[in-house]
């Protein structure tokens, strides 16, 4: 072990081409990226830029067709088999026939933890997302924001150091989204997890991230990587500061540069 902590995610010359009926589609091309421990990295870009695909490659839900990817120093597949990450989808994707506590306990059941251990972790993670008291409720009895919090709890339940989030708050209204962004930052500060966060909202990306990866489509590629100069402590009103607006402007420029508006 050297002084430098090893990269949590390291991609080099990563490419992925989907074979479709209309011919090959290059979803990712030549992606080089290293994410260190404890970082909060956002992926932002227009639809079709491959941000979700990149997240799915990290999660071993898609296989790259060229280049290499390592997660925690292993291949993505090995990392998935070791349950190295928790994945949060665009929708809460809770099982409607399970109560909230049994949804959160699903990964723990699959891992074969003891009942006592399961109960203890369910309680802890539900506390973490402020859902204590809703253990026995079914998903439909909760609001959209609460459902998404439950799905975050489910991703946290088995204590993976890496959290992959694919537009988790995209379907929620802005007030709920602000609130969840605040809670997510607080959670990140407390747990020191590494978070990869896909979004198409500039303020969300700037507010949350230590680093913002700007992507552009056709072929999907990384067009800019912006280091945030914001402090780790971020009250919501930081979004009105000139520093925040400057970073947002850079992201917007990056998006514009990578996107051709001819069409």
């Amino acid at each position: 072990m050297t002084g430098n902590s090893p990269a949590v995610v390291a991609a080099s010359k990563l490419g992925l081409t989907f074979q479709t009926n209309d011919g090959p589609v290059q979803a990712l091309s030549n992606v080089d990226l290293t994410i260190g421990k404890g970082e909060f990295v956002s992926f932002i870009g227009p639809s079709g830029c491959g941000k979700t695909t990149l997240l799915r490659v990290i999660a071993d839900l898609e296989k790259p067709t060229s280049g290499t990817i390592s997660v925690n120093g292993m291949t993505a597949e090995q990392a998935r088999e070791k349950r190295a990450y928790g994945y949060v989808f665009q929708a809460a994707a809770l099982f409607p026939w399970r109560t909230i506590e049994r949804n959160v306990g699903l990964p723990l059941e699959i891992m074969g933890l003891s009942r006592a251990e399961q109960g203890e972790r369910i309680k802890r993670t539900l506390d973490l997302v402020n859902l204590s008291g809703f253990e026995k409720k079914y998903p439909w009895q909760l609001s959209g924001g609460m459902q998404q919090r439950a799905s975050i709890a489910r991703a946290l339940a088995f204590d993976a150091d890496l959290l992959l989030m694919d537009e988790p708050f995209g379907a929620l209204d802005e007030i709920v989204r602000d609130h969840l962004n605040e809670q997510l930052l607080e959670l990140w500060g407390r747990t020191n997890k590494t978070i990869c966060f896909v979004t198409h909202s500039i303020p969300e990306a700037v507010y949350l991230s230590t680093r913002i990866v700007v992507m552009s489509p056709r072929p999907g590629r990384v067009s800019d990587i912006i280091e945030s100069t914001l402090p780790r402590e971020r009250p919501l009103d930081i979004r009105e500061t000139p520093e925040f607006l400057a970073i947002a402007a850079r992201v917007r420029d990056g998006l514009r540069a990578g996107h051709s508006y001819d069409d």
Partner: protein
Amino acid sequence: MDTFRDKLVPVTSILAGVVVLWYVFAVVLNAPFQRDLDRRAGETSTFSELIGKTLSQPKPTLPAPHQVAVNFFENTFLRPITSNRSLVYNAWVTLSSTLLGFAFGTALGIIIAVGIVHVATLDRSLMPWIIASQTIPILAVAPMIIVVLGAIGISGLIPKAMISTYLSFFPVTVGMVKGLRSPEIMHLDLMHTYNASRAQTFWRLRVPASVPFLFTSMKVAVAASLVGAIVGELPTGAVAGIGAKLLAGAYYSQSIDIWSALVAGSVVAALLVMVVGIAGRLVDRAMGGRPA
């Protein structure tokens, strides 16, 4: 109150319409034979007398609703249920083979569906045969099943139940294949991120997701089972059962008996579908289903 307005009123209106039409047809269809009778007896009937007589013939071409109702009532409630003229007794005989065949059919349907969903070869090889099996007329197959099974010494309940099985496994297979494949991609991906085994994905995701499909297809299957049991009684020369009553009624031109046996069959079918529906709703509630 809402159920009353939404369901009872429309259903009752249709029923009333059917009854009226039924009376009209009873008069029209029974009148020629009644005129014939009158002529031979040398009587002349007024129009209203003629109508009265057409609605009270002992072996009418089309019995009037009240004749069927009286026959149904007498044979259901006024006979000891051990009597072989009792509709309750005959319905029970048919019901027992219906239920046995339904249980076999549901189990078989589920097993085949699980195979089809998990083994690609079965999906391609078995599905066309399963669909073909349902295009064969059951009336042609039923006697052969009875004869073949009889030749190897199996008779009684089992051959009839097998015909029910033959009809009822199909909707369950089709429904369960759909149900076991119903989980969203997102849910399957989620299980994949947990590195869940196929068995874990099956029991924790595919099976619970398929439950609503199972009950929907079981409603169709239970009605098909009853048809199978009745059809199974026709070629066997069965002495009891709703099918046997229909056959005996046809031999002896007891049209009223035929119709009341038909009514008994419909009542049993409605009850069976209702029981499956209630079971489905109870299971749904137990699985956290949202009250409708």
